[in-house]
């Protein structure tokens, strides 16, 4: 439903101002529509990637647990636990921000150490443990990537909702309101012209009678 904007004085200056306002509002609408379409494109892309990464992560977890159970079966739980305690190390994640059309999205990257050894004894362990360690590192990378994607998706979703409300307000309220007011003022001026013409005719008739 379009609403009329209250015009204080129905003058030509007001009409010019309203026309300017309408042009401005249309430009804003175009700009925000572009922004929404970019945000939606990025959202869909991130959503697709999230699905891929999640699927990959589940597969990696499954392979990792399989390798871990094989290693546990080969070495025994006590020996495996002893080796894994020795291999415990810190985890460093580089966190920053990236910006998509005004939306700040986190960017995480797992920092890889340059050390080639994992901390456990290579003499006392087998390749089963190496395989487990390799797969768990892959899982960690995927977890960090998934965290980034999911947070990004949530923030993009919120921004899309907010921006869509603004687009709707412009499209269904502000622009139709301005158009209706311009139309109303135009009609008012036409009416004034007609009144003026009939008044002049009346004056002319009166003057002729005299």
């Amino acid at each position, binding site marked *: 439903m379009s609403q009329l904007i209250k015009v204080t004085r129905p003058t030509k200056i*007001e009409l010019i101002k309203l026309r300017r306002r309408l042009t401005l509002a249309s*430009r*804003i609408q175009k*700009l925000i529509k572009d*922004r929404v379409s970019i945000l939606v*494109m990025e959202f869909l892309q991130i959503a697709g990637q999230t699905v891929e990464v999640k699927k990959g992560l589940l597969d990696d977890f499954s392979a990792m647990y399989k390798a871990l159970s094989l290693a546990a079966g080969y070495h025994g739980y006590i020996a495996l636990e002893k080796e894994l305690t020795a291999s415990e190390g810190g985890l460093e994640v580089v966190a*920053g921000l990236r910006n998509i059309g*005004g939306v700040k999205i986190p960017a995480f*990257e797992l920092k890889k150490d340059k050390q080639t050894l994992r901390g456990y004894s290579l003499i006392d362990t087998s390749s089963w443990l190496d395989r487990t360690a390799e797969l768990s590192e892959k899982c960690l990378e995927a977890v960090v990537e998934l965290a980034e994607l999911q947070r990004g998706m949530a923030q993009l979703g919120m921004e899309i909702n907010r921006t869509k409300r603004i687009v709707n307000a412009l499209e269904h309220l502000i622009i139709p309101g301005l158009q209706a007011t311009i139309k109303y003022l135009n009609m008012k001026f036409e009416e004034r012209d007609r009144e003026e013409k009939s008044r002049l005719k009346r004056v002319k008739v009166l003057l002729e009678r005299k």
Partner: protein
Amino acid sequence: MDSGLPYESILQKYLTGELRVLNAHLPGSQKLLSDLWDEEYPHVLCNDGSIHLFKRKELKYLAGLIDADEQKMLSLPILIEVSAGRTEMAVLCPGEVEKKVIQKVLDMPLDVREGRIALYRPQLALVRRLLRTTTQYVFSAQL
């Protein structure tokens, strides 16, 4: 102030604010790929004071597309211009290296017109998918 109608000033402020938000993330200055490669945390400072982080994985991918001399000419982030109401976007291409990178990413020959490569949305999606942190949007509106 206009005569009792705050709409114009509100709209003007909103548009300015919206453009400021959209383009706040633009880098103060671009950095060369060869310089970023040497940094521990490759990043650029943005106009709003925030830090835009580049992923090493992407830098590695870009370094694989071009040779060592060209790495000294590629400025990052690559800027993608979005103009209001236009269907295609444009990659700002000040040099030949950017063109080469985009051509290799899309795997197709491209034309540079007035320092810009026109991209359609599906192409843009592909570029953004591979170069998430090494490309950035610039929104332009004719006021």
